[in-house]
């Protein structure tokens, strides 16, 4: 089994994007290979300007909860999603975008941050990578 982690980023919720990127960066730091598969609501976060747009998965309260949690996170010195994403790329992480999501949600390549995306793919690529991974998660 390869020392590799594959993560499906299905949720676009802010806290879950944090979970995915923190786990992914942790795995890279431990010397693993990591692929993140962005699909459905998760893929919305790869739209230009979309990274921070996700609501909180619970107690969002029309954005009030997100604002309060965001303030606490800044106070605790938690890194921004943008920094986590840049670190992920710098450490050699791979980002894949689901092309079926693009089709059904009417997202074009030029709407996405192509500089971050290694490839556009479908379930087959995920399965091939997941079957040789020791860690695979659905977030």
């Amino acid at each position, binding site marked *: 089994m390869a020392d590799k982690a594959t993560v499906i980023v299905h949720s676009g919720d802010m806290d879950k994007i944090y979970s995915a990127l*923190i786990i992914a*960066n*942790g795995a*890279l*730091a*431990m*010397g693993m290979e990591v692929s993140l598969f962005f699909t459905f609501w998760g893929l919305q976060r790869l739209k230009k300007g979309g990274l921070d747009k996700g609501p909180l998965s619970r107690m969002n309260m029309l954005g009030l909860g997100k604002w309060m949690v965001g303030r606490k996170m800044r106070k*605790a*010195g*938690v*890194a921004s999603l943008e920094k*986590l994403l840049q*670190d992920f790329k*710098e*450490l050699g992480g791979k980002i894949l975008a689901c092309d079926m999501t693009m089709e059904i949600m009417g997202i074009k390549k030029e709407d996405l941050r192509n500089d971050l995306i290694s490839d556009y793919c479908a379930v087959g690529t995920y399965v091939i990578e997941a079957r040789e991974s020791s860690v695979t998660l659905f977030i």
Partner: protein
Amino acid sequence: MSEIKVDCTGETCPIPLVETRKALRKAEEGDIVEVIGTHPSSKKEIPMAVRALGLELLSIDEKDGVWKIRIQR
């Protein structure tokens, strides 16, 4: 051989781990990476990463809540 210093004071999960890995990637064989920080779990987890990467842990010290970890690439 050179020494690379990484200051993660005040940073929280996963930054100390990530910055350590970034420095280790940039380091050349034989270089020493010295990381200082205050995040408690990172003091345990950076040595775990060093083992996972098959590198040598030179020392771990802590004084007044600030830890210092030295790693040989």
